């Protein structure tokens, strides 16, 4: 959501160690990062504080996951072996069999960069090409009358509680 970036970031993990020289803290085991509707899970997370406002987080997992609810009620879910979050331009970079799923399409590539504010997605191929699948629902929603839109709102509210 728009308001996410103003929320405080909460990081939970089994253990964490800080290294003041390199301004990095490392969290290990069931790492869960939440900020507003954003939720990041991973086995290991390394947070680096460069200059203020330019913090960076590198999450790795099998896979590491990213979830965010957008203003239009459509959630975005992403997965990859490695997810880097750059606060400066509010961007996440997924690499090694990365996949990004929206309500009406899912998308896989070797690396995906996703800008949270502009929702811009960039993808690059690895051994196999990038793959986008538009699900019929996405095609339907364009056509469906008002009635079905309500149904989507209802389901998402439930998920959010």
């Amino acid at each position, binding site marked *: 959501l728009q308001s996410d970036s103003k929320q405080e970031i909460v990081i939970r993990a089994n253990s964490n160690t800080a290294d003041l020289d390199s301004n990095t803290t490392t969290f290990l085991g069931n790492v869960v990062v939440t900020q507003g509707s954003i939720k990041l899970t991973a086995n290991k997370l390394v947070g680096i504080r460069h200059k203020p406002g330019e913090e960076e987080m590198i999450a790795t997992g099998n896979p590491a996951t990213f979830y965010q609810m957008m203003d239009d009620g459509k959630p975005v879910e992403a997965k990859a072996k490695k997810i880097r979050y750059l606060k400066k331009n509010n961007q996440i970079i997924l690499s090694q069999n990365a996949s990004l799923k929206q309500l009406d399409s899912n998308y896989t*590539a070797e690396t995906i960069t996703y800008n949270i504010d*502009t929702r811009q997605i960039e993808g690059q191929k690895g051994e196999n090409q990038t793959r986008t699948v538009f699900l019929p629902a996405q*095609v339907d929603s364009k056509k469906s009358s008002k009635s079905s839109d309500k149904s989507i709102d209802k389901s998402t509210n439930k998920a959010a509680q």
Partner: protein
Amino acid sequence: APAESFEGNVITIADLPLTQRCYAYVPEVVLAPDIDPNTTEVEVLSDSTSSEANTFVYKGNVKVTQGLKELKSDTLTYNSDTQKAQALGNIHFTDGQVSITGAQIDADLSNDTATSYDTRYQFHGKGGRGKSDELEVLDREHYNLYEASYTSCPPGDKTWEVRAKQFEIDNEEELATAKHATFWIQDVPVFYFPYFSYPIGSNRKSGFLIPSVSSSSENGITYEQPIYWNIAPNQDATLTVKTMAQRGVHELAEYRYLLPSNSGKFNAEYLDSDKKTDEDRYLLHWNHNTNVGGHFRFNTNYTKVSDDNYFNDLGSTVGARTDNQLLQTASTAWLEKNWNAEIEVRDFQVLGGSAPHVVMPKLAFNGYYPTNWNHIEADIFAEVTKFDHKDDNVYVGTRYHLQPKLLLPLYSQAAFLNTELSYLLTHYQQTIPDTVKASWYKELDKDVTRSLPSFSMHGGLNFERETQFLGGDYTQTLTPQVKYLYVPYRDQGNIGLYDTSPLQLDYYGLFRDQRYSGIDRIADANQVTVGVSTSYLDDKFTDRFRFAIGQMFYLEQSKTSLPSDTIINDDNSSSLVAQTDFNFDDKWFYHGGIEVDTSGREFSRGNTTIERRWAWNKLVQLNYRYIKAPEDNKNTYVKGVVNQIGTKAAWPFNDQWSAIGSYYYDTDNKRAFETLAGIKYEDCCWAVSLVYDRHMKTSYGRIGDIDNNYDLSSSIKFQIELKGLAGFGNNASSSLSQGLFSYGRPFSNK
């Protein structure tokens, strides 16, 4: 006369080796159930993607698939909101019906439409291909091409091509329409057409558009240019302009319509002041059927020509050169479950012969009443007919006829016994002219009433057995039949002949109640007809062999005769009738029939037809037909009324060269009715045929006076066929049906 084509085996492209060689490059048609674009997933593969809100940009070996549709390109941009996509660079698109390559495609996935620019297209399953600056895919069945070309020749073969400002292709109707088109042969523009449509499938009208050139002794050099106009899915029209050097310009128009309860065809043909006879020559033909709810019916079948030799000199799609009686009839009827009523008028235009009586009008009523009282059925037939005649010194009259009938049909699997008792009551009011055309008119009376009963018992047994024949297992059926018929004698010399003449006898005809057609002579009879028929059925229950033989035995001589019978038949039996058919292994087909005058120990009628067939376009048929001359005017005929040997053959030398032949010879008068030979060369997308046809011109002098009615007409016809522009699939029977005799295969029973 419409030809009987091979029973249903439409020639598909795949059968012909030549076609396989020519069209190996053509992709198969992939038929898929109509997928709804709204419910089918779209998958896009690419080397890289970038997207913002709902516009996606794909770059590098992009491949989009949706159901059967597949699009490849260098780049693709897609807006998921407007669902519009644009592909650029090295584009390949296919949807199972057409394959397209080009520089740019704009597609709208929401309604299945697309426009492709600078395109090459290739239809699946047929040879049609070409280029197009702009190709619009409206849906899977409809395409529009602008500044485009079309040919069915394989790539690199420049035999012919059509280039047009616009093509509309309708795969559903299997029809294409071109506007502002020019026709090119080997890169030379040959014809220009403002508008024309042509079939792109095999079942639409074919063999049109292509001009044909012929030269005949009758009409000199003739150039025929047909133009096909598809007015609506259920109506079409063909206009043919035939310019003949020695006669002038002959315009033939045909309009066909197939509406829900009305169908039919209208033909008008006109030749303005024929140079040879300097008269105007025309033909009118209307064949129509109305059927409303099965109850109301209106039919017409009317043909009129300007002069007797119209078909003979000009030829026409409506009548055959040898036709001599043009039916002009119309009838309207109301039908119910157990009765029907009809009003009919009927006239003829007889070419050469004398005009017959005219039915103006006939009112008929038929009633059927199956009483459920132990199987008895009652029928009633009533008719009032007013006969007229163009020749004033021929009698005319009105006939009132009533015929109630009681039937007792007893049937079981193994036997049947059918008893019929009817009573025929007829009244004539005749007007006899004072100057008479024939002496027997003098015996006619003004008012005549005739009434007589007719009784018959017709029984038969059905036997069967399993048997072998030439190594095959067959079920043989055997059906002996006996029929006793009694009709008392009435002197009918005072009744005129309106629609009565002797009926020809075949095995089925032996068991009729009547010797004459019509009602004006009811022959007395006290006779027994005996007959037996047998057939061999193979394991699929199709007849492979049939034989039937029968004869009538007169217990009492029949005293009824026609005025034209000069010799009274005093035998005590009719002629022996036998007929046989066989279809051996779908290779040998035979039909034969004889009528033997047992007392005079000679054939009165005989015919035999044998055909050896190797393939649909490889067959030889031999036939012989004989009808003995009637006793009383033997001198006019050499031997028979008909004494004719005929042969037809179709022979492919290889899959490009083939020949057809047809030869009919009148053995009595030692001259050929028809000598026809044709040769055809076929290539991938065109074929050319040359047919030499020499036939006897029909003369309308009296039958039997031979000398001055022997006039030959010969012609050579050169025909180009452009496959893919004039439809596909040409079966031998249509080419074999050129000339006087259309082709018919003996024993074509399934």
